[in-house]
């Protein structure tokens, strides 16, 4: 239990620092984060399943300039944890899978709001840094920067603990409400989410030549794999 808490906190700090403050080595991507969360709570495969869908969903929103995209890292923390506890020995059922994806949206929006707040507080840090430099202290730059990174790390840890906690709670409640035994219809929506993800990729890579490339591949792969499924 304690080691799980520590691991989640560490994943949170690393992922959120990587997201904005430093490195940007893509350790914050939903596929990575959701798999890690799934692994911490006992089912890396279920986490990866959710992570792969979340990975593409928000790509259409680019982190350009001062505009902040929805926090897909946070959504993946929620989704990975929820998927791991909601999955049974045969994996994650379609109804719970859909519900996990849909319920992760508030996390993405909350994470975005927190990100903006952190950047506002950084404004104070930057102002203080400039004041100190004007007084002749060149080391203030180093202190200011580290304060900013620390702020991203702390907020990331807090977000990771809250989102994964919410994910665990949701995961425990999901199976009875949305799982195979329930009357819920969320299961029929499941095929839709990868398509939204694909549309997101298609939208952010749009040029004159990408539309035929996208639709032709979709048709070819669809026909080919269907043929092999029937044949095999």
């Amino acid at each position, binding site marked *: 239990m304690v080691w799980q808490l520590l691991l989640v906190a560490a994943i949170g700090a690393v992922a959120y620092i990587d997201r904005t403050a430093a490195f940007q080595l893509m350790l914050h991507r939903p596929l990575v984060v959701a798999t890690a969360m799934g692994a911490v709570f006992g089912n890396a495969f279920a986490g990866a399943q959710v992570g792969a869908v979340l990975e593409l969903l928000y790509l259409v*929103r*680019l982190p*350009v*300039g*001062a*505009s902040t995209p929805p926090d897909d890292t946070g959504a993946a923390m929620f989704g990975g944890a929820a998927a791991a506890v909601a999955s049974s020995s045969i994996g994650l059922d379609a109804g719970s899978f859909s519900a996990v994806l849909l319920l992760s949206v508030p996390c993405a929006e909350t994470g975005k709001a927190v990100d*903006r707040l952190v*950047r506002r507080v950084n404004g104070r840090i930057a102002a203080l840094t400039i004041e100190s430099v004007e007084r002749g202290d060149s080391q203030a730059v180093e202190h200011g920067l580290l304060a900013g990174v620390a702020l991203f790390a702390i907020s990331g840890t807090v977000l990771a603990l809250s989102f994964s906690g919410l994910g665990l709670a949701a995961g425990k409640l999901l199976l009875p409400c949305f799982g195979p035994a329930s009357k819920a219809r969320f299961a029929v929506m499941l095929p839709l989410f990868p398509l939204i993800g694909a549309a997101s990729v298609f939208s*952010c890579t*749009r*040029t*004159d030549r990408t539309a035929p490339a996208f639709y032709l591949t979709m048709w070819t792969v669809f026909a080919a794999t269907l043929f092999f499924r029937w044949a095999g």
Partner: protein
Amino acid sequence: MPLVLVRVDCRLIHGQVVETWLPHTGANCVVVANDDLAGNPFLRSVMELAVPPSIHMVFCRLDEVAKELERIDSHEEKAILLCSTFSDALRVYNSGTRFSSINIGNLHYAAGKVEISPSVFFSPEDFEAVHNFRDHGVEVNVRATPFEAGTTCEPGRK
């Protein structure tokens, strides 16, 4: 009228313009109206590297905008007009280029400026320019990317 967007942005060409506004408006031409750039081939060549090759880039002085737009119109292109400051945009407007709305993307912070949105800070002259545009019936909206809800600047705000 070939103009699909008139934008004030202190950074002129950058990611928000290339990756969000160009696809959103479907423009195939970018007019950068800036007196400094028009006389600096080095910086122009760097800016040209930043847009996809299919986009037609035009650099011109502020007073040449109307003439350039006429030429672009004859090619039936759709253009985005970029200015780096509010007063530049006002000069373009006063020299005969007409548009019905103007988008404010980024105007960076300096001491004494008032925050309008996270990336837009107005100086007293900027408020003056907003009044001027409003008097001419030009709508002023503050929006960094087309995804944002954006705010319309009310004339009473100061």
